[in-house]
Structure formats: structure tokens, C-alpha cells
């Protein structure tokens, strides 16, 4: 049989009944199960303390002032700037004033952080373990035979991965084993999950694969190690260099000129 002609084969319907459908059904069910389990296991998010919130909001207030400086007249802006800079310098808004000189607190000592990190790790476990289990199960039970023919061709290099258990060097790459059916399902069932479980669902296998590769960044996620003292000081610097320009500067002249009641007498930076 020359390569290039259609390799026509027919498969036993028993394979279809006992392998094709069960793999899909199991993957859907495991996904739903994982979603429900994640919902059960996710504890309450830790209640933030008022001092923590106040820190964050004080920083935001400085940011908003810098961004929206054009909406208030110069006097009002100067007043706010003076007050905020003094407060930042002195550390009125800091959670632990005594710590101001010491720098960032030890991350592990904060009990709230432990809970947040444990939650994150639990979620990752929930993602990785079922995928590994299912892959192992498929390899164990459903290896060594052809399951399906792909309607589209692939490169020769995929043959090794997709026909893993079968020792026939001449067979078309399109005849594949059950592991590749697992992969097709893994990618294709995302749409089904978002139909069944709504938008934010934890049944997505591929999202966990990308999460695994970014596991190194997990230590910075809690956000607590931010040194607010330093941020306050840098915000103070930002505020002091903001160029204030009031939107309503010389508004009387501008309205008159716009409606043609007065010729423009002087050059201004506003049109």
C-alpha cells in the first residue's frame, strides 16, 4: 500500500461505545466536579482591617489628586497637596507607625497572608491533580490501540506522541491513540464548560497548565510586602512635581472670545 493513498480502515463499534464516549463523559463530569469542589473549598476571603484599607485609600487619594488636578483651582489644589505631603512625610496613614524605620515587615509573620497563600496553593492542587490522574488512567487502560482518525493531517513528528502505544511505522499520522483524544477533549471542552457552568468556572484544564508555568510568581501575589512608607514618599514626590493647570482658567475671557463678543487680546495656552 503506497503512502499517499487513503488508508481506509474500519473500527469496531465497541471501541466507540467503551472508549470514545466514556473519555468525553468522564472529562466533563470531572470538570464539573472540580468546579463544585473549588467552590466548596474556597474559604471566605480574609477581612481587611480598617487600617489596611486606610493605607491603600490614602495612596489612591494622592493619585487621584495628581490625575485630576485640572478640575480644581490653584488654591484648592495647593491646600490639598500641602496636607497630603505633610501626612505622607509624617506617616499619619501608616498601619504601624513604629515600623516606619524598619522597612517591610516579615511576610510569613502575618497570619492573614498564610490563609491567602494556602488558598492559592489549594486551588493549584485542584487544577493539577485531576489532569494528571486522568492522563494516567487513560495511559493505563486505553493504550495500545487506535481510537480515532483525525480529519486533518499533521506533521510526521506528531506521530510519536499521538500513536504512542502502537508499533506500526507506516500508518498515517491521522490514526491516533486515545491520548490524543484526551488532548482534543481538553482543549475543546472549554466551550462546553462555559455553557454549563457559566462564565467564571474552575473546570478549565488548560488554565491550570499556564498557572503551573507562572508558579514562580506566586510569592508576590498577596501584595502585603508592599512597603507603604516608600510608596507614600514616592507619591509625595509625584505630587510636588505635578504641573497644575486649571481648566477654568480665564474662563470669562474664553467664553467671550468664543462667542465673538471680544477679540482675543492676548495669547494663551488654551485655545
Amino acid at each position, binding site marked *: 500500500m503506497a503512502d499517499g493513498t487513503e488508508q481506509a480502515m*474500519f473500527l469496531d463499534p465497541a*471501541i466507540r461505545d467503551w472508549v470514545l464516549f466514556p473519555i*468525553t463523559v468522564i472529562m466533563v463530569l470531572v470538570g464539573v466536579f472540580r468546579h463544585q469542589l473549588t467552590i466548596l473549598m474556597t474559604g471566605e476571603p480574609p477581612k481587611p482591617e480598617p487600617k489596611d484599607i486606610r493605607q491603600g485609600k490614602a495612596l489612591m487619594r494622592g493619585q487621584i489628586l495628581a490625575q485630576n488636578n485640572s478640575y480644581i483651582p490653584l488654591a484648592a489644589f495647593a491646600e490639598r497637596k500641602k496636607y497630603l505631603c505633610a501626612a505622607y512625610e509624617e506617616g499619619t496613614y501608616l498601619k504601624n507607625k513604629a515600623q516606619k524605620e524598619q522597612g517591610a515587615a516579615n511576610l510569613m509573620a502575618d497570619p492573614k497572608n498564610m490563609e491567602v497563600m494556602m488558598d492559592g496553593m489549594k486551588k493549584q492542587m485542584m487544577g493539577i491533580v485531576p489532569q494528571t490522574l486522568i492522563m494516567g488512567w487513560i495511559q493505563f487502560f486505553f493504550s495500545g490501540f487506535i481510537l480515532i*482518525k483525525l*480529519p*486533518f493531517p499533521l506533521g510526521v513528528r506528531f506521530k510519536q506522541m499521538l500513536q504512542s502505544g502502537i508499533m506500526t511505522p507506516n500508518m498515517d499520522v491521522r490514526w491516533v491513540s486515545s491520548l490524543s483524544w484526551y488532548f482534543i477533549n481538553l*482543549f*475543546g471542552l*472549554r*466551550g462546553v464548560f462555559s455553557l454549563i457552568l457559566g462564565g467564571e468556572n474552575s473546570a478549565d484544564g488548560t488554565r491550570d497548565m499556564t498557572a503551573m508555568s507562572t508558579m514562580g510568581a506566586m510569592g508576590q501575589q498577596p501584595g502585603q510586602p508592599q512597603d507603604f512608607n516608600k510608596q507614600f514618599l514616592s507619591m509625595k514626590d509625584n505630587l510636588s512635581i505635578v504641573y497644575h493647570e486649571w481648566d477654568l482658567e480665564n474662563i470669562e475671557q474664553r467664553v467671550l472670545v468664543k462667542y465673538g463678543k471680544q477679540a482675543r487680546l492676548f495669547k494663551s495656552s488654551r485655545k
Partner: protein
Amino acid sequence: MADQNDLYKYFEPTVQHNTLALSNIHTLTSWGVGTAAGILGLTGWNGFIFFLLSWVVISAAVLTIKCEGKPSVFFKSGTMDVVGTPVLNTLLSYVLVWTLMHALVYIYD
């Protein structure tokens, strides 16, 4: 300034709801189109061309009927969000259904 306007121009929960609705439309239609492709016995490039054609038709329908011709009212990135972003996900769904149906009709006795 433009970025700040963007923050206030779109109400986030509604945008998310729109995106979810669009995704549902794409999933359901890709299942229908995939079934058609499998039963018709399309293979190789024909299958992908069929997918692209259906993508054009479905996107046009969504843009005219659901978005009333103005996708930027419903989505943050306008037409790109409707036509470009869901392609990969829908393609994967399509491949799943296409393979399944093709196998059911032609490969099994």
C-alpha cells in the same frame, strides 16, 4: 485622558455578560457547524475553509443582528472583540466536534 475615559465609559459587569453571551453563541454554532463538517465528510483543508466561511457568516450575523451594527457600544475593543478574540477557542471546539462526528459516521461500522 483617553484611558481614563475608557474606565468610566464601560460598565464592567455588562461587558462581561456580553462576552459570555458571545462565547455561548460561538460554542453552540461551532457545535452545529462541526457536526455538519463531520457528517459531510470534509477532511483536511476543506474542513478549515468551511470553518472560516462559517466564522465570517456567524460574525456578520452577530454584528448586524445582535450588535445592531455598532460593536463598540457592546464591547471594549469593538469589532476585534467580536471577530478576532474568540477565534482560537471556537476553533478548538470545532475541531473536537468535527473529529467526533467524522469518526462516528465514517470510521465506525
